[in-house]
């Protein structure tokens, strides 16, 4: 039995969440192949190999270099067929989600998303999935002979002790239907740490009083290498772009540390952060509901606490 892992590239580099998918696949099956689209930096195939893949199928077709949901779904289905893969593993993302649902229909596979742990194969094939926006889990049996798993971030750790992966060029069949959607432009923040991928997140809320006060959030984030986020009111008021909105109807994050500054902790915001490993809340209101969901708390004025915290971290970094 073999597994296929879809690896997304970000500026030529394999995304960490995709490497988690490779490692997950290699914990389930011995024989793991990764599929990669577009230009890949030197050394990335080694990383994918170390994460657990024995082979990388590399699609170098120019027409497929930029993400294309329908064409990628066709190519991945073809790769599963060619490799005899009974399992496809990928990371949840704006690309992975729609691709996996289409592949499920094309290949008649059972699909589970938001998977948080390795499968239990003692009786059938069961996986634990995060539901109700992180407030509960469902144990799901995948009934099909073929299975597709969309992983939530941090479902498994990335392995670094796998072998080396051979790279094989793969030229999937193309059809016109898959190119009906024209992507006319792509706007992407560059050089920033992407929020859904981030291991550390610093978020600001209405307590910061205005967009002009975001400097201290950015300073703290930069000092620890974190992504920046915000609460819904902040993005609704256009203080920050929508892709930074963390919460029930925004980005769901699962970093090792989530720092919330001046955010009261409405239940809809908590829904976006409740799978964080640790939560630090800085708020001047000791009654802020967020403290109940926090591991660490500082009751104090953000305008004093945040710059001092940044300095304290810098001092310890030497």
């Amino acid at each position, binding site marked *: 039995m073999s597994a296929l892992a879809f690896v997304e590239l970000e500026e030529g580099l394999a995304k960490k969440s995709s490497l988690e998918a490779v490692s997950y696949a290699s914990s389930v099956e011995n024989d793991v192949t990764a599929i990669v689209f577009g230009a890949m930096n030197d050394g990335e195939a080694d990383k994918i190999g170390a994460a657990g893949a024995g082979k990388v199928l590399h699609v170098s077709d120019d027409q497929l270099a930029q993400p294309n949901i*329908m064409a990628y*779904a066709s190519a991945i289905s073809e790769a599963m067929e060619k490799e005899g893969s009974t399992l496809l593993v990928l990371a949840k993302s704006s690309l992975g*989600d*729609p*691709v996996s*649902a*289409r592949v*499920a*229909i094309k290949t008649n596979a059972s*699909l*589970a*998303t*938001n998977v948080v742990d390795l499968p239990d194969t003692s009786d059938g094939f069961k996986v634990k*999935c*995060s*539901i*109700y*926006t992180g*407030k*509960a*889990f*469902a*144990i*799901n*049996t*995948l009934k099909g002979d073929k299975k597709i798993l969309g992983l939530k971030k941090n479902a498994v750790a990335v392995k670094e002790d796998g072998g080396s992966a051979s790279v094989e060029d793969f030229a999937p069949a193309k059809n016109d239907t898959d190119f*009906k*959607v*024209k*992507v*006319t432009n*792509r*706007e*992407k923040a560059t050089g920033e740490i992407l929020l*859904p*991928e981030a291991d550390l997140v610093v978020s600001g809320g209405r307590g910061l009083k205005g967009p002009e006060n975001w400097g201290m959030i950015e300073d703290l984030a930069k000092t*620890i290498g974190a992504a920046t986020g915000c609460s819904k009111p902040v993005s609704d008021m256009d203080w920050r772009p*929508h892709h930074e909105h963390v919460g029930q*109807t925004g980005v769901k994050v699962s970093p*090792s*540390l989530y720092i919330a500054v001046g955010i009261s902790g409405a239940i*809809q915001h908590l*829904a976006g952060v409740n799978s964080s490993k*640790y939560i*630090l809340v800085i708020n001047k209101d000791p009654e802020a509901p967020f*403290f*109940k969901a*926090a*591991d*660490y*708390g*500082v*009751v*104090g004025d953000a305008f*004093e*606490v945040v710059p*001092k*915290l940044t300095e304290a*971290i810098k*001092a310890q970094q030497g």
Partner: protein
Amino acid sequence: MKILVCITHVPDTTSKISFTDNNTKFDKTGVQFIIGPYDDYALARAVELKEANGGSITVLNVGEAETEPTIRKALAIGADDAVRVNAFPTDAYFVARQIAKVAQEGEYDLILMGRESIDFNGGQVHSMVGELMGLPSVSPVMVLDVEGNTAKIQREIEGGKEFMELELPFVAGCQEPIAEWKIPNMRGIMSARSKPLNVVEPTGDDTSVKTENFEMPPAKGDVKLIDPENLDELVNLLKNDAKVL
């Protein structure tokens, strides 16, 4: 323009989530059910498109009779008629097949729904419907403009957005800020009572994923408060206890 808007019937976002029957059933006690918030955005945009271009809106729900008040609310907001596929929405594949069948028969120009349901958060159904019908599907859509037979779309991606153009018909999973939620007015609520709500039986009973049982996350311990005058202690804790810095 004929628009199909698919809605879910889900617990209010402030609901306390718990389970009964040995953790195999969702506990509905005291829970208020609403139109899925993302579906509500899809419906609001459909109403705006209808106001601008004319046409009709059909709202579709796969659910048992208990979902009818939620469907009536969608009619009050501005849908013209409704279809309820009389079945429990067991898994994404089953729901997608039901939607694809209704959509195929109705020859809609646009099939809109939320980016995901807020109960199972799968986000699979729109893409499955697209694939089943041989149509493009786009999600999560933040801007949807239609001119003639062409749509211009902005889709959110990690750290930014993607601009797309495509021909109708297609499937879209919607999210804010595609439109402002609409609150039904008295006239809408009155007229919703007499709008047609057709109940149809499901096609097939194939499912692909079976939910065995539910689990709650482990309870969170108490917060450790640190004096704002002693932030070195906080840095120490983050570094050495939590090991996250």
